[in-house]
């Protein structure tokens, strides 16, 4: 599938601005760290920068889970922003990162080049970055891990419905005794459940993104089918010949700086207890609230969060002025899917952009998968049939972009070209603000 609406835009201007952006960049040197941060391309004039939180709720943390029993705050979403001195009069843009990552995704690239946080600000956008609920500066619910740690020795306490419930392997009377499992309960950890005095409560899984996980998911090279590693020296795996990611920050022998932004993903700890029960993905709701507070915003999600802008719009479309999905994030409409006609009608009122990188393959030898990835074709067709404005971009097919973009194309060598592509789409599809910027 092509992207006719982008072709209708002024390709020359698009390419021209992209080339100008590239001209601003010094040549990439050997990958280092502090030393690798490249010089400023000129004064960055800001009206304001700051940070705040959206949402959050307290829950009880009794002894012995905390040395000083009391309440702790969970489920808040940390937001950082900067506003340029000269606005482009478009709605603010809000970036949310993917799995195992944080807002660092949008900052300086691993090899020291300008990231999208600075670039979009330089282009006149009020630019916001949020850490997903349960990640990085948004914190996480440590009580669930403490519960497992102290499972066999804690004293009973009154469950406030928000936190841990029973102790010593006995569930208290009442509904939904969160986390209180008897020995041998099949919901528990089969190993710890066999230990004397253990109830078998299960730690929520922590997703640890290893080098090979990143290799496969971020598509740095052909899938590895034998023992191999990016950290082995010399590396026993090779990137795609046209790989756009700065691989000197990935492979042994280089800085491996990329992996320093990869952090544990505690998403599985979300939505277990009391008022938060079943709230497995609190971030989209916070994004909808943020967009409304901003008086309208363009929401951007990547990978794990690529569906979040759509989820946010379906919760409350009031503030959502545009949806940008970077890599996946589509929903199947109709039978067998979750997207209803009413959902499609809501989305048809919001401009949407889907951007995908290169090298989606399966098998060995790698076989390219059809683009867009399912179920995007069905969602695109449904929204277009409802009169909506949805654009699909497969980066290798865009004139001037080239091949080899990874899953992390906001950090690829041509990241600013891709940013210009997105900005061009915004200018043609998202309405200007109504004459007032704060």
């Amino acid at each position, binding site marked *: 599938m092509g992207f006719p609406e982008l072709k209708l835009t002024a390709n020359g201007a698009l390419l021209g601005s992209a080339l100008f952006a590239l001209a601003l960049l010094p040549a990439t040197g050997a990958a280092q760290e502090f030393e690798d941060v490249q010089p400023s391309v000129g004064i960055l004039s800001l009206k304001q920068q700051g940070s705040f939180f959206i949402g959050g709720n307290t829950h009880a943390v009794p002894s012995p889970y905390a040395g000083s029993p009391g309440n702790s705050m969970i489920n808040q979403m940390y937001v950082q922003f900067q506003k340029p001195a000269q606005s482009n009069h478009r709605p603010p843009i809000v970036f949310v990162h*993917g*799995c*195992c990552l944080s807002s660092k995704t949008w900052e300086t690239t691993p090899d020291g080049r300008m990231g999208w946080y600075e670039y979009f600000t330089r282009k006149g956008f009020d630019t916001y970055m949020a850490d997903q609920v349960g990640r990085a500066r948004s914190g996480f619910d440590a009580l669930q891990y403490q519960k497992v740690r102290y499972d066999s020795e804690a004293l009973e306490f009154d469950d406030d*419905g928000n936190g841990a419930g029973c102790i010593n392997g006995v569930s208290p009377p*009442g*509904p*939904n*005794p*969160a*986390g209180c*499992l008897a020995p041998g309960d*099949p*919901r*528990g950890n089969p190993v710890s459940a066999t230990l004397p005095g253990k109830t078998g409560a*299960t730690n*929520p*899984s922590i*997703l640890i993104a290893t080098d090979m*996980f990143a290799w496969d*998911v971020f598509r740095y090279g052909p899938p590895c089918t034998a023992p191999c590693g990016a950290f082995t020296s010399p590396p026993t795996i090779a990137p795609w010949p046209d790989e756009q990611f700065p691989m000197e920050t990935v492979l042994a022998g280089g800085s491996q700086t990329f992996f320093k932004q990869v952090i544990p993903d505690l*998403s*599985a700890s979300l*939505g*277990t207890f*009391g*008022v938060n*029960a*079943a*709230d*497995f*993905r609190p971030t*989209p*709701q916070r994004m909808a609230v943020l967009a409304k507070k901003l008086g309208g915003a363009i929401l951007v*999600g990547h*990978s*794990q*969060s*690529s*569906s*979040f802008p759509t*989820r946010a719009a*379906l*919760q409350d479309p009031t503030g959502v002025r545009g949806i940008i999905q970077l*890599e*996946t*994030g589509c*929903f*199947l*409409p*109709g*039978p*067998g*899917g*979750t*997207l*209803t*006609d*009413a*959902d499609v009608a809501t989305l048809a009122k919001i401009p949407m952009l889907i951007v995908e990188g290169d090298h989606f393959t399966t098998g060995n030898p790698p076989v390219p998968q059809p683009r867009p990835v399912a*179920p995007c074709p069905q969602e695109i067709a449904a929204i277009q049939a409802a009169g909506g404005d949805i654009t699909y971009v497969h980066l290798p097919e865009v004139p001037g972009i080239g091949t080899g973009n990874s899953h992390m194309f906001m950090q690829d060598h041509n990241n600013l070209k891709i940013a210009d592509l997105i900005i061009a789409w915004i200018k043609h599809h998202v309405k200007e603000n109504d004459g007032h910027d704060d």
Partner: protein
Amino acid sequence: MHTILAVLVSASQMLYEAQVPTFGCSSNAEVARLQAVRSDANAFYKLLTEQVVHGQCVAIPPGAMVEGSITDTDASMLLVNVKNDPPGYVVPLKDFTPRKADARQ
């Protein structure tokens, strides 16, 4: 037609409790793919992780209470969390048991 079905679905919502560590996805097909490899712990964990990473599925802890209804196309699957996280998630019904409406605190 689908809107009418959605209204009917929302009218027949029930509370369910997850009995085992389970998952929810964006479509029946994604749930079926995971169910097909569930007996192989490693293959299941790898596929679930991949789906979670790409935002198509979520892990659901045991004891989680969800509002849901059996999907109109597959009686072995529930559509849950339509109200608090639209458009919701499809989950394998056999991992859940119905609970009384006052069970959620």
